[in-house]
């Protein structure tokens, strides 16, 4: 994202835009949704900014190095996620998705463009996705009604792309009690329905 045919002054005033448009959640509400089913909680997460990073030809090493510096760990290998305030997960050969808190990194894509320069292609992805976190010890019993991921083999730090009710999603095991399902934003309603129905089916 850089030059255009019209003069662009700074797109941000400081770190925060002062426009007055109000965002809505993927489910179309003012605030994210929380559902409790038995021992599990299903929480809509709207507090995370996303950006995609794809290494340019010949700059794969440089991209990996920069990404590593940004997340404070080695660039994640296939099916892995790592990081801290900035977290990355593998999405394809020399491709990652980067997550950061929206409160402090609303302009994540802009910052990554500055960091990677011409070594990688970056796009804003925050609003392309919706996210629901399943919290509780028993989420494997729910996930097995939804997709073919073999959670029994997961040790921690895994991410996998899969299909849930015909929707292409990323599933990440954040920790032993938290699973994130990241799906296409426009189908948030259908994805939420699939998740909550599976929860109610099991519990």
């Amino acid at each position: 994202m850089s030059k255009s045919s019209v003069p662009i002054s700074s797109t941000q005033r400081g770190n925060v835009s002062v426009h007055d448009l109000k965002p809505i959640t993927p489910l179309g509400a003012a605030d994210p949704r929380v559902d409790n089913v038995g021992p599990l909680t299903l929480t809509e997460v709207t507090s995370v900014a996303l950006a995609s990073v794809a290494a340019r030809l010949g700059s794969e090493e440089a991209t990996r190095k920069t990404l590593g510096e940004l997340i404070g760990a080695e660039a994640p290998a296939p099916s892995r996620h790592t990081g801290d305030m900035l977290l990355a997960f593998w999405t394809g050969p020399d491709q990652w998705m980067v997550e950061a808190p929206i409160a402090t990194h609303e302009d994540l894509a802009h910052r990554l463009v500055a960091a990677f320069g011409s070594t990688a292609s970056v796009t804003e992805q925050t609003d392309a996705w919706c996210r629901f976190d399943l919290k509780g010890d028993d989420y494997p019993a729910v996930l097995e009604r939804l997709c073919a991921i073999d959670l029994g083999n997961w040790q921690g730090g895994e991410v996998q792309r899969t299909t849930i009710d015909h929707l292409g999603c990323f599933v990440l095991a954040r920790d032993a009690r938290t699973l994130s399902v990241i799906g296409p934003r426009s189908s948030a309603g259908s994805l939420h329905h699939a998740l909550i129905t599976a929860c109610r089916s099991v519990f």
Partner: protein
Amino acid sequence: MSDKNRLNGGLIERNRPMSFTFDGKRYSGYAGDTLASALLANGVRLMGRSFKYHRPRGPLTAGSEEPNAIVELRGGARKEPNTRATTAELFDGLSANSQNRFPSLKWDAMAINDRLSTFFAAGFYYKTFMWPAAFWEKLYEPMIRRAAGLGTLSHEPDPDCYDKGFLHCDVLIIGAGPAGLAAALTAGESGARVILADEDFLLGGRLNAETGLLADEDGVAWAAQAVARLRSMPNVRVMPRSTVIGAFDHGVYGMVERVSDHVAEPAAGKPRQILWRIYSKRAILSAGATERPIVFENNDRPGIMLASAMRSYANRWAATPGKAVAVFTNNDDGHRTAADLHAKGVKVTVIDTRPDAGVSPDYEILSGAQVIDTKGRLGLKSVDVQLSSGGTRTLFVDGLGVSGGWNPNVHMTCHQRGRPQWEETLCAFVPGGTMPTGLIPAGAAIGAFSTHAALNSGQDTAATALGDLGLTVTRPDLPSAEDAPVRVASFWHVKGAKRAWVDQQNDVTAKDVKLAHQENFTSVEHLKRYTTLGMATDQGKTSNIAGLAIMAEVTGKQIPEVGTTMFRPPYTPTAIGVLAGRSRDKDFRPVRKTPSHYWAEEQGAVFVEVGMWLRAQWFPKPGETHWRESVDREVLQTRKSVGVCDCTTLGKIDVQGADAAEFLNKIYANGFAKLAVGKTRYGLMLREDGIAMDDGTAGRLAEDHFVVTTTTANAVPVFRHMEFIRQCLYPDMDVQLISTTEAWAQYAVAGPNSRKLLQKIVDPEFDISNEGFPFMACGEITVCGGLRARLFRISFSGELAFEIAVPTRYGDALMRRLMKEGKEFDVTPYGTEALSVMRIEKGHAAGNELNGTTSAFNLGMGRMVSKKKDSIGSTLSERPGLNEEDALKLVGFKPVNAEHKVPAGAHLMTKGTPVDAAHDQGYITSACYSPNLGCHIGIGYLKSGDTRLGEVVRLVSPLTGVDHDVEVVSAHFVDPEGERLRA
């Protein structure tokens, strides 16, 4: 009547009595009963009427292979026909009704068919109901339709819900009899991830139905203790009431778990059944074996059943068909039934075909004898026996157990076209040929019939599987068990029978098999389809082999020469609902909602499905009663002042990299390498064969950054196409792609006041005047005080127009702001209908014109295909077939009579020529009522259309009676010079 045939013992829970009804009459049974066992205990043997001849029938078996005792279970919307009473678990309040009889089971008017059986022999419908032809649809078809089929549907939507699920394991064990339990214990103790599945609600297989199988302990107790041990292992998942229905590719199995069929109604939110997809590394088919009957005269009366079923009813369910029974057998195993029934106080006589059948202190054995007839229409009364001496004897019995030997359950080994092989010593087929990947049969399924053999086969097979997976094998101790040899004499049917039943569910007799041979349908595949042997819901589990044996005899072949037909999933009847899972009604597939969806709902918009998207089609105002009023108004208002349309659904593909422009040159027919930064260009994409594939625009935001748009319908196919080209055709180009369709909310703002409206929201430092932001400009801007946005000056409507994009979560707010700021211009939202009308008025091609058969040349864009560079499809676009003299060309059409419509799909004929395919001149692709022209218009393809402007041609649709004149005009009905666009 109640409990008159109940015996002592059994595995039923006598402290849990249950009440149920059958054909409206109330009975009682116990937890652990099946519907069939409870009915037998109540003295009820008559449970159904056969398919063709409506002969009175009772249960032949005690399992899922049942052909006769099929009933309608439950009532109302949950009524399910063709349910096997032999596997239906009894629950309190269960209600079942017999089927295929009128008016009642005892007195069925259709039994007349039995008297007319000569006319209903196999293949009768190839020879009857021919004349007169007029009767086919009026009489014969409705008559046969009413008579055909067994149970009836409720005709109400299925109120239950069904889940899908996914399981993973090292070893899937199919069947929890002795072999399966031994395999599961071995695999479980060796630390493998195990799934043990059985279709029954009580695991243990024949251990729960026989006596004396284990030397030092009770088989029932051992089975229960083995299951408890397995349930305690965290690496083992025990799944009763779960039928593995098919062996699919790569070790994937389908399994239906009956979660709620054994209770009156599923609990709220809980599924009735689950279809599990199991990913296994190895699978052990310990599916056991099914006994086969012998074919003889009137071998189908209620009370006649498989000998093993008779002792299952006695041992497991404490029920008997009567106080006096006989057993007809050709092997040692049949004698087990005699011993067990005798032990429960039932009088038994054994009829053994073998001359050396021996003697017993407990019951009489007639050696070298055969059953030649039976009596008792509504229930067995007596059996006529031909003795070895030549004389006959009549036995007065209520039940007859028949044992013709055992057939290993090879079905699943054949699901991927494996063919079983004949084993002479067993007189049966065993698994053979290529197994599905990773599937190993074991136990009775491979002919290891003794309990000792089955247990060890299960353990050895598990050890092999574990070894394959690199696991160390722990072999738990197995109990000592009987190891009786198989002694069977081949005996398939009693000669000279007239009504001797081979397939009881489809009413196929031995005579029918001989008839098939007589008519030269001797191959096993023809035998099956000509007689319908093996084609019923039981898939011939108790009849296939007898049919083969009889055919072998009449053709003078050996049984293996005749062969077997193919077994296919599902192993047992499976509800369509469980295959559908949650994908039904409005949840059939996901819905995609646009960023302005909730706002549009508030406006009362009418929505249309576009693929998975819901798009606003029009926005009716109060007082408008017909969609044309709304659409015409939206079109007129947009062209008069300003309109806003959500076009988020069109694909937006982000293209970056040093070679991004070069890449676009490859995928687009026209040139993009020299497109200036800050400019957009219309692009046409061709398929490799030169046919037009999709069109859109590409905007250059920077030297190395483009946004490519596609049509809504082709967003995914084009992205896939571009990725293929990137990865496979040009891997040395530096280009990266990602979809951003969802990430940005995008709205078209169109009309003479569109700029004025946008100037109220675009931040003041951005100059969007005609000089500052000319036609086809693009750029990154901010709106409403600093929100990042992208602006494109492109027009689909033909008016002065822009498309503005903001991050999707602000789309709702932006639409509301545009409506608020646009009030002073009487802004109108417009939907897909108005969008379509305007683009047709303007003559823009869309999906209807890019229909997979048309080229750039047909579209009038031939010169857009650059000859200066190579691109996908450019070479083949030059082939002669796509460049004929009289090729179709896209033009417009106006009716000569303004009252006439221009139906899309109608064909065009030169005036004075015949109306036929040979003279066809083209067809209308898109049409609408144009409120701007005050008449219907259309665009479409006409041979050499571009040279025929002004000509009047004939518009015809012979199927719908359309035939009137239309004038050939330019497709650009509105603003043909493009002045409004450049304002």
